[in-house]
């Protein structure tokens, strides 16, 4: 596949690995924010390959993981409501809420439909005029434009039976919040490449300057990840705290203006609760007042039942990079992708799921314990 295979080329990757080892004078600590990058680093063994040169800590780059319990609970409640269909990305279906997941609700008969795109939810609404269709809108700024297109189409089409449960979150406030932690040990950031296709990277200038951290816009394939890491350690070695773009085939400084215009028309920025991290200032999006009739919480009300988080889940510490997944006492035992205590173990982008998948499940420890 063009623009994919070239950036998975093992030989290019290996030469970057060698270069990184040769470039560093000490071990640096970098944080990648995006869960897709976490998975790439582990899936290709990059994190381990670079272990002597770079410690990679994993940030809260999993919008599925940080979607509030209240939102999941409300989605489930709406799905159980007669005459309502909840349309959701596959990613959210197995994430545990206070009382089970959307998939559990579906097994019990609730109307939950998996969609690949918010525009599929528009289609469902058009084909089911007597049902209320609620789209569970999760994701970073990468996905928010798609939802904006959907709701604008709904308005043009005068769809009375379409609404959004908005849970879009913003990356930069999360990065800033992590830098503000007293025990923060992030030397540099790998910025989320696909978020930056929309936002551009001009917003990172202030962050880099204020906190004296280099920020490198990075892609997702092995070669892209390694190129971003190389750039970041090079900046650190030369003590420069700049913003650089290593994903220039997809990202430009100003981002995607057309997408942002669509977003600005429908969303306003709000403070919001990130599951595991708490309230983040300007951390989320909400529909503007003039669009609020498309907001499911206005149309149907909030969740009527209390929110119950699992106390054993240390997802918050994992999401802020303070705990590695395998350091959690529940990892692989009480908490597995089959029976997750929290979102990071079940989300396709969660760091816990990445460790479980690509580092080997603890069950292999029993295998290793068997004598020859």
């Amino acid at each position, binding site marked *: 596949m063009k623009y994919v295979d070239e950036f998975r080329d*093992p030989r290019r990757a290996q030469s970057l690995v060698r270069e990184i080892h040769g470039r560093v004078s000490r071990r640096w600590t970098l944080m990648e924010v995006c869960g897709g990058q976490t998975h790439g680093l*582990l899936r290709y*063994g*990059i994190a*381990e390959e670079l272990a002597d040169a770079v410690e990679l800590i994993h940030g809260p780059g999993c919008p599925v993981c940080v979607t509030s319990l209240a939102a999941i609970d409300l989605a489930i409640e709406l799905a159980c409501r007669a005459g309502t269909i909840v349309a959701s990305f596959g990613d959210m279906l197995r994430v545990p809420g206070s009382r089970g997941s959307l998939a559990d609700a579906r097994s019990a008969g609730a109307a939950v439909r998996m969609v*690949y795109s918010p525009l599929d939810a528009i289609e469902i609404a058009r084909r089911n005029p007597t049902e209320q269709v609620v789209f569970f809108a999760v994701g970073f700024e990468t*996905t928010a434009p798609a939802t904006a297109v959907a709701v604008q189409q709904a308005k043009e089409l005068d769809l009375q039976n379409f609404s959004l449960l908005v849970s879009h979150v913003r990356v930069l406030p999360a990065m800033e919040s992590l830098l503000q932690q007293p025990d923060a040990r992030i030397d540099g950031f790998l910025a989320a490449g696909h978020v930056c296709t929309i936002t551009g990277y001009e917003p990172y200038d202030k962050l880099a300057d204020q906190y004296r951290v280099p920020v490198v816009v990075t892609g997702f394939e092995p070669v892209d990840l390694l190129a971003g890491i190389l750039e970041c350690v090079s900046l650190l070695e030369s003590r420069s705290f700049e913003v650089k773009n290593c994903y220039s085939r997809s990202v430009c400084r100003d981002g995607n203006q057309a997408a942002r215009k669509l977003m600005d028309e429908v969303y306003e920025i709000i403070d919001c609760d990130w599951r595991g991290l708490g309230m983040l200032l300007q951390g989320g999006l909400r529909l503007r007042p003039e669009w609020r009739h498309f907001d499911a919480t206005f149309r149907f009300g909030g969740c009527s039942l209390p929110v119950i988080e699992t106390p054993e889940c240390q997802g918050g510490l994992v999401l802020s990079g303070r705990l590695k997944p395998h350091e959690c006492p529940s990892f692989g035992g009480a908490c597995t992708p*089959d029976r997750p205590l929290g979102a990071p173990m079940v989300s396709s982008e969660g760091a816990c799921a990445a460790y479980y998948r690509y580092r*080997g499940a603890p069950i292999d420890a029993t*295998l290793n314990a068997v004598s020859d």
Partner: protein
Amino acid sequence: MTFATAGIACPTMHSSSQDRITLAHGEGGRQSRRLIAEVILPALNPADQHLTEDAACLPQPTGPIAFTTDSFVVSPIFFPAGDIGSLSVFGTTNDLAVAGAVPLWMSLALVLEEGLPMSILSRVLASVGRAAREVGVRVVTGDTKVVPKGMADGLYINTAAVGLIRPPVPAGPTALAVGDELILSGPIARHGVAVLAAREQLGILPEPTSDCGSLLPGVEALRRRSIPVRAIRDATRGGVSAVLHEWARDCRLSLSINELSIPVADETRGVCELLGLDPLHVANEGTMVIAVAPGAGEAAVAALQELPQHRQAALCGVVQVRQLASVVVQRGLGRAIPLDEPQGAPLPRIC
């Protein structure tokens, strides 16, 4: 699922019991007899003589037999390059094939949803008939039940089949040894992708096709060339990953595969990339994993490649001493990365 998503246009609402299955068809009376005589037997043409008997009394096989059972609940009923009917025959007889047996006889039990159009039933059964003839298995006994509307997703099929074991039979995964070579008989993940694309109406063109088909010719090709096969399994639900994990548990060694050697069709790759699916976790219905003695891999691949359906058979891996995990994938950076077990059905993702 509605019949509209079964893959054919839905007949009009006011059709008679001749057009649709009713509860009476499962009650054992006149309606049942008519269903068998007028719909089921003709569609299975030629219908085996035993089908009208309560039990099929069959001659004693000439040697030990293999016996298998399976159930089929696939949705949608019809998908590109297959349907629940052909799937029920190939899926069942493939289990016999990889056990080293030649299929003899099969049972066919139908659970029909009230309201199922007769035309769909006929079409599925015609497909059963065609597949059975291709494989050389006789459908000798059957049963029909009808459940109320809303159950059975249109139609479920349960089968059982008997085959005659033909030595040499592979020793099985407990006998896997270090150095044994791992082969895939063709491009993987086609069936799961085809069914997902059809069921979710993903609008992918050309429509991804299933690999639903018989493994008997492939198994026979290996037998004819006296390939020393250690273990052989069709990679159905859970994909190649599920088979490798089962084998690793049985032999307590590590199974290592090279990602770059795994055959994947372009179309499958495109869909998997788009939806974020790992082909190793996606179901197949006409593709097998084969372990052969050290050094026999190339000959095994050559034997398979003579058949058009296995032209892309490839040597993909090797059995090793226990290392960091039971199943590992070489991903080209030179490291062996653990391959996880499938955790439920693979879901498309956007993150």
